[in-house]
Every structure is written in structure tokens, then in C-alpha cells.
């Protein structure tokens, strides 16, 4: 299976990369590991004229800690994140999430954290061969006006199945985006549009440079459900962060995020707040928050992943509950 033609550039400095991006913004795509982008190109879903490869951009590959944050360069390989003791200890959910991505050969050694966050939304009806899509009206994401996942929908309902993004949102991560003219930091929760066609609130000339994970002593967990152990996207996933109060026995702050349901990972504010002040041993409160998460996430459930809606909704509750329990266990041990 061959790729469509394109021109390749491999800038070796960030500056050069941003220049190129600025010049070709509309026709260019950033190539990091390529495990998402090249597949979409082979399927004819996109046909960029330029690929700007980050291969030579070693300056974007790092994991470091400063004061209260872990900073990860966007081009850092998932394998490096998995191998990092720092991430494992301070941002457990991310470590777990990266381990679950794809398989060793493809993702760990090639996939990058930036690419994982910026992987395009997926839909059972959209991520198909060109021929499959040719025999029907185009869907929103394919340039048309209909949605196969939800009848009568006026917009695209593809879902974000990124393991990394779900974990990072639970961890309260921020993204540093740079362009030739500007650099800005945006909370991951504010990074998404509500449209599956272009799910990221990002300008075409912008590049994801860095992921900043605040480290404030919380314990996190990531849980996902898939049909098999590798080469699989999550059917449902959940990331959770629990911070202990000064007395260590109660929850001072909680963040609950559900992935693979909506157009972006879903930060559930109300359910998160409900746990404030609760004991780490209060499984009834966890169950209540988990069930409420299910109800909140259920409004986003459409037929975009090959499993029934009833099942995915039920599993939201289960994944959130498991994540809460695991994080609570870790927090009480700490």
C-alpha cells in the first residue's frame, strides 16, 4: 500500500520548523511518529502537500522536572515516557496510558506523546478505506453534510480515543503551543473545539511544543477497556487524579476524566467536586460519582465505536470507579 505523493522537509531546529509551518500552514502536516498520520494518508483521508518531519528536532524530546511540574517535549517517544521513573511516580496515569497504546513495535518506538494527543478523532464510519467511503454520501468529517454515527446530527461526532490525552487531562496538564509569532499555554481542558471535524483549538501554523503536568502530590490512575491486550483503541477509558488533604485521610481535590466517549476527553466537573472532603475509603461516594459520570458521559454516546451504547455507558461507570479506587489506594499508601 503506497502513500500519495508529498514533499518532505525535516527541519533540525524549532525555528526552522515554525518558519516552514508558517509558510505552508494550509498545505502542511506535522509528521512526528507517523503512526496516525501516515495511516490516514494511506486511507486517503487526507493528502497534505508538505510533511514537516520532527525527526531531526531532538530539542523537543525530553522529560524534565522543574519546581512543581513535569515538562515533556512533544516529540518524546511513548517508550521514553513509559521508561521514566519520574512519570511513573508523579504522573502514574500517563505512564499507564502510554503502556496501553498500540503495541511495542508501532507505538512505543515510533509514537510520540504529541502525536498521541493530536491523533485525529476516530469514527467507526469514517476511518475506512477510500473505497468504503466512496459508495455513500460523504459524512461531515469527509466534507459532506451527514453523520452516520448519530442520525440527523448537524456536526461530526467522531471521538477522541487518545489514551494520553485522557490521562493528561485528569492530571490537569497544559499544552505549550508555538508559532512563528507567538507562544501560548493552554489548559488541555480548553484545547478542544466541540466539532469532530477539527477537534483541536489550534491554529494551522501552531506547533505543539511541550506538555506541562503540574505535580502537586496527587495520585492518579488510568483505566481502559479494550477487547484485547494490544493493537486496540479503548472502548471507554477514564483518568482520575486525587489529592489528599493535609490530614491525608480525605480528598482535597479530585479530577475525573472520561475518554473515548465524546469529541474530546470529558472533564466531569460536578462529579469531581462531589468527592471533595470525602474519605479515601468512601467507596459509596466513588460509586455515586462513577454512576453520575456515566449519566454525564451518556449524553455524548453515539455509534462511533464498534460497541453498543448501553455497554459503553455502563463501562464508564466501571472504569471511573476502578480508577478512583486505584488512585485512592495509592493516595492512602503515600
Amino acid at each position, binding site marked *: *500500500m503506497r502513500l500519495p505523493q508529498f514533499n518532505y522537509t525535516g527541519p533540525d531546529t524549532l525555528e526552522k520548523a515554525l518558519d516552514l509551518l508558517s509558510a505552508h500552514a494550509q498545505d502542511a502536516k506535522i509528521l512526528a511518529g507517523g503512526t496516525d498520520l501516515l495511516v490516514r494518508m494511506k486511507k486517503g483521508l487526507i493528502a497534505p502537500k508538505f510533511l514537516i518531519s520532527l525527526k531531526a528536532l531532538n530539542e523537543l524530546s525530553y522529560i524534565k522536572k522543574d519546581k512543581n511540574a513535569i515538562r515533556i517535549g512533544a516529540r518524546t517517544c511513548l517508550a521514553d515516557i513509559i521508561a521514566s521513573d519520574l512519570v511513573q511516580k508523579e504522573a502514574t496515569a500517563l505512564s499507564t496510558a502510554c503502556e496501553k497504546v498500540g503495541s511495542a513495535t508501532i507505538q512505543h518506538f515510533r509514537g510520540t506523546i504529541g502525536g498521541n494527543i493530536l491523533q485525529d478523532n476516530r469514527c467507526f464510519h469514517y476511518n*475506512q478505506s477510500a473505497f*468504503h467511503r466512496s*459508495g455513500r454520501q460523504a459524512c461531515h468529517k469527509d466534507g459532506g453534510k451527514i453523520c452516520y454515527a448519530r442520525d440527523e446530527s448537524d456536526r461530526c461526532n467522531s471521538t477522541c480515543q487518545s489514551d494520553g490525552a485522557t490521562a493528561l487531562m485528569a492530571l490537569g496538564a497544559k499544552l505549550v503551543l508555538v508559532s512563528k509569532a507567538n507562544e501560548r499555554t493552554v489548559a488541555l481542558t480548553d484545547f478542544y473545539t466541540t466539532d469532530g471535524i477539527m477537534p483541536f483549538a489550534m491554529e494551522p501554523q501552531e506547533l505543539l511544543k511541550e506538555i506541562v503536568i503540574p505535580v502537586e502530590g496527587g495520585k492518579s490512575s488510568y483505566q481502559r477497556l479494550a*477487547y484485547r491486550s494490544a*493493537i486496540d483503541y479503548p472502548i471507554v477509558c477514564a483518568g482520575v487524579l486525587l489529592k489528599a488533604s493535609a490530614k491525608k485521610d480525605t480528598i482535597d481535590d479530585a479530577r475525573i476524566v472520561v475518554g473515548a466517549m465524546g469529541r474530546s476527553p470529558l472533564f466531569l466537573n460536578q462529579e469531581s467536586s462531589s468527592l471533595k472532603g470525602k474519605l479515601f475509603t468512601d467507596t459509596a461516594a466513588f460509586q455515586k460519582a462513577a454512576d453520575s459520570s456515566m449519566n454525564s458521559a451518556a449524553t455524548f454516546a453515539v455509534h462511533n465505536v464498534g460497541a453498543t451504547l*448501553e455497554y459503553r455507558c455502563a*463501562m464508564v461507570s466501571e472504569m471511573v470507579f476502578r480508577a478512583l479506587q486505584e488512585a485512592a489506594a495509592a493516595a492512602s499508601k503515600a
Partner: protein
Amino acid sequence: MNELKELSIVGKRIPKLDAAKKAMGRAEYIQDIKLPGMVYGKILYSKYAHANIVKIDTSRAKALPGVLCILTGDDVPKKMKMGFYKDNPPLKKGKVCSFRDEVAAVAATTPEIAKKALDMIEIQYEELPGIFDPEKAMQPDSPLVHDYHKTNVLNLPWKLHYGDVEKAEKESAFVVEERFTTQWVTHCCLGTSGAIALFDSNNNLTIHTNTQIPSLAQKDFLESLKAMGIENKRVRVIKPIIGGGFGSKLDSYAYEHVAILLAHACRRPVKIQFDRVEEFKATSTRQPTIIYIKQGCDKNGKLTFRDMRMVLDNGAYTSWGATTPSVMMMPITSLYRVENVRYEAKCVYTNNTYSQAFRGYGNPQATFAIESTLDMLAEKAGIDRVQIRRLNRNQPGDVTPQGFKISSCGLSECIDAVEKEMVINGPKEKGIGYGIASLIHVGGGARIYKSDGCGAILKMDDYGKVDIFTGGTDMGQGMDNITAQIVAEELGLLVEDINVVHSDTDVCPWDVGAHASRSTFVAGNAALGAAKKVKAVILEEAAKTFGVSPDQIVMKARNIFVPGDAEKTMTIDKLLRKVHFSPQGKMLMADYFYDPDNENMGKDMKGNMSVTYAFGAHGVKVKVDEETGKVTVLDYVAAHDVGRAINPLLLEGQVYGGVLMGLGYALTEEVVVRDGKTMNANFRDYKLFTAKDAIKIKAPVVETYDEFGPFGAKGIGEPGCVPTAPAIANAVYDAVGVRITTLPITPEKVLAALMEKKKNH
């Protein structure tokens, strides 16, 4: 048993003969073959499940530089039809009946140009209402898939009734009844399909193609040539090394016939190579089924009757999937002793994909229903699950209601072997369950076709080396080893002395194909027959040399000698030269055609289909996560009666591979088809197990020594995947008390059943 005495070569764990070549990346698959002047063919498929073709305009595509030839249904001779029902032309004309319908084909100088040309072919369709549910398609008001056929129900003879089922039901102490369904699954051969066709200057055809049936494919292609008006020409079928078979290559496919048409039209070698999406969408699946079953027993648990009815979604065309009932009948009439049996299957046209042979050939579907209901029956009758199987087990000397003569039978020993490794009825933790299921399968050929034979030609050179030309086909399963080991054993040589030539119809004799777990038995007996003929001559010559009678002479480890007489010994190659380079010298050659003494089924479906039958029992331990419904396999035992293991290493490989394939069938695999369209045509969405999901499988071998098998062996290619699904379903029931009747047993089905159960309690 005396017959199971230790042998020199047979019974040894000899690595697969072509493994080193494959390990070095030097094996040539169809993907790797390029011929001088070769061009590339591509096929355009239908955009609709059911539509009239109003107009096809190929003019723009034809004008594309590099395009050599474009064909549509109009260019296909009327009599060129595929499948055993001959209802499938390689390119469709007038109407398409499924998404995989081939509507046009292009030959071009590069694959890219061919693909581009396909995009430039303009077709105007008029969409018709499709029918996708076989039970609805049977209704009189259903749209017709083929108007000329008048009904969607195929005219096939799948019906039998032995004994008196109604009477037996009335007299039964316990009866269970259930509806089961099984899904589409596909072979997922790692090497995708492909063919290269070329005509020589005299219009003789050579075709390199991925096939499991060189001789029958040759016949199909000859018929195509005849339809094209090319008569009395030769067809040479060469099968390169193939990346897996599993039954997928038991029929000729449209792409092969299209390659022939294109090659003939543009006078160049034409290669059609499928990509993965095509492999998923345009090759055939395992036959899906809807099964209605009733089984009963007396108060002691002895089976009284079995009543089964099936509806098979035939898809839009008819390949071997529609004949799987002929093999489903085997477990239905003959798995365990049951005197009163009734079975009827209807194959129904729909606008879905059509099915093919797939490892087990209907047996896994039927066994799923039989073995699941057997557990239900045991529970109802209050009898231990293992006990009910022992009580009703087949035994040597049985003749089953369908007329199968059970020669050797190790079912009892297989159940013992499972119980030795696993306590099926022992105490267990919450969420843990055990399941058991048995199998019967053909183990000594299967007379589906008029001949079940295989030919072998053997020649020896002056250096003690053998070339054996066999009709048998190797597709990775090890037919080559089995042949070499049998010949080496018989002729007192080493395996490396034997060169097995196969899969080329110009040099190899006829064979019905690599199916029905028949290669070890049938190709093995053919090779053994040829070796025996040569051996007889060698012994006669040696007898003259040594001045003894032939029966005093032994051939072993490249030597020929009279035991106990140090004077009377020489190397085999020396003897061969002596025989050759003497006045009226001889070269040692022999041919042998082995056609097993089995029977075609009669009108009443009776007949001893196979010379011998393979048996087995599987035991499994699972853990069910009651919150997610996910089933995890913790332990697996697959015990098989193989007659005799010719090569335990390869035998285990067949069992392990079969079991994991069966586990996929049971738990994760399904071709998702929506309104006729395949929705998961890739390895990400079609859930094959990965190495991370792999489990340790114990594979105890029961050797019963079958008197008809080569050195006592029976077939083992398919059995591994036959009883896996019911074993799992039974274990899930044992673990959490829910009976899943539709495959695959996905987490969501288990969870839904658990919820339902909670509601009712």
C-alpha cells in the same frame, strides 16, 4: 500395542522442511514474484449491496496512459461462472448483488495507474432494496437476490432423519431446546491473496496462484478457457509458498479468472495482488448460521434424540459455504451415541458476502450448539457434565446413524487426558468456571468430491536421494514433512534425503486438495504406497546380491543389510548404482494413486464419509469479570486422538494454532457486516488475538493407531478449533451462570446477560 513401536523417522520432532528458508526471508510468496513484462490488474467492486448497473463508461479510464486494458461484465463469456452452483460470473453484468461484486477490471503498467484508472471508471447505478436477514429472505414477499432463481432459498439437499425423533422426544425424561447463532469470521491469512496469469504463444495458460486445490483449480480454469473459446489447451497451476490457507483457498475466486481474462486480452503476464482491505471484503468468510436445536436424554442421561434445523446466510453467490451442512451432519449424527437424529438446513440468498470453507467446515458451528445444549441437558437431568459425555461417548466398532464406521476411537482417553490436567467439577472461586466439549471430525479423508484421491510419483537417483512428486499441498501445515518422514522411514533414509515437490500441476499428480484434515492421511498413504513399491524392487535386487530372501533384509539409516550378518551390508546409494549400471539396468521409480476406501453420501445422506474419524476433548478454565463481562482464558487443555503422531512438533503446532483460532471465534472475532457492508476490514477492528493475549495450551496426544492410516496416523489439521467455542461457553456458564448463545461471547453480551439474570432474581 505392537504397532506403536518406536520408529526411526516417523514420530520424531523434525522441524518444518522449509522453515529455514522462511526464517531467512528467502521464501517466495505471490507478493514476491515478478515476471518479465508483468503488468498489474485491479478490480473495481460495487458501491451498492443491490443495484442495477445502468451504464458503465470506461472511456476516461481507457485514455489514461499506462492503461492496457479494461474489462466489464460485457467482456466476460456467458458460460464463465464460478462456484459449485455456478451462479457467480467473475465480472457482473446488469446487476450487482453484494458490495463485493466485481464490476470492472483494469490492467496497467503500474499498480498506481491501475488504481487511478479504477477511480476514473464511471458507473451509474439504480439502487434496489437489499435483503440482509436470511430468515426474512425466506419470506415470500422478500426482494429476490437473483430474479432468475425465483426464490431466495437454494435448492440443496441438506435434510436427514434417522430413527424417529418425535417418538424419542415423547419418551425422553429430559429435553432442552435453544436457538444459537454464529457469526461471520474470516481466515486472516497473513499473506493476502494474489495471482499471476500468463498465456504462452500457443494460448496455453500458466497461473501462479494462492490455492489449496491445484488440481481442482486447474479444472475451473480449463472451464474458463473453454468458455472463452480456447479449447484443448493446457493449464498449468503453480502454487507459490502461501501465507496461510485455513480453507480460504478451496474455491477459485473472481480475481483468478479476471487475471486470466486480462492476461488474455493484453497478452502480458497480469498480476492481481489483494491489499488487506480487499482481503477482508472480497474473500469469503466462515459460514454464519442460525441454529435451532432440541436434545433429549433418558433419566440416566443417555441421549435419546437430537433435532436440529439451520438457516444459513448464503450471501449473494454460492461457494463451499453452502455445502458446509454436509460436514455439520457429522457431529449432528455422530458426536456421541444418539440413535434418533433429524437435521435440515436451508441456504438462503441475501445481499451479504458469501461464505467459503474455513477450518472445520461447519463443524465448529454445529458443535457449538450440540455441546452447549449437552451441558444444559446435564444440568436439567442433574448429571455431572463429564459423566454425561462419558456415558454417551463413541466407541471403536460403532456404526453411527449416518453410517460412519468408527474404526479407532480415543474419545474416552481424551476425556481422561483433560481430567488429568484439569478438575472440571472441582471447587472454584467466584467468577471462575470450567468447561468441557468434545469433537468428532473426519480423520481419514472425506469423500465430498467424486474422488478423494492423491497421487504420488517417486524417483530415486544414484546417490540415495529421493524426489517425490505429490499431489498434496503444503500451506504451512507440514504436508511436506509428513511426506518426507513417511518416505524416509519406509526407505531407510534420512529426511534430508527426500525432496518433496508439490503444488505444480505440470509435474505433480492429481489430488483433490488440502482440505478436510486429509493431507497426512491421504497424501501420506499415497507417498507410502509409492515408497513401498520402490522398496519392493530394492529388496528384490538386494536379495539377489546378498543371496537371501527379501523379507530378511532391512533398510535403515541409509544402509541396507541382513541383520546379524556383518558380511551382507551395503549403503543404499551403492546398491542403487549397482542396479542402475548393470546390463538391463533399472532406475527406481514408482507411482501410486491412493483413493481411500470411503463413501460418498447417498440420497439419504448415509455413507462412510471418511475411512477413520478423529476425536478430541477440550477443557478450559476461565475467569469472568462480572463488572465488565470480560472473559479471560486461564488454562486450556486440548486432547486429541491422532491415531499416531508422525511429527509431534508440527502436530502440536496444528493444535495450538487451531485452539487460538477457536478462541478468537469464541470470544473476539467477527466480521461486522451492516446492510451488506463490511465495517471492520482491518486488523485493528477485526480482533485477532495478539501475542499478549496468547495462553499456554496443553495438548496431550492420544495415540490409538488407526489400522488404515500411514503408520497409524489420522488427520489433525482442523480439530483444534472445533470444540473451543462451546468449551468456553460452558465455562462461562459454570463461572457466572449465564448461557451465551450467540458468538462471539463479547464482554457486552456477557454483561447484558448478567444484568438480565440479576433482574430476574
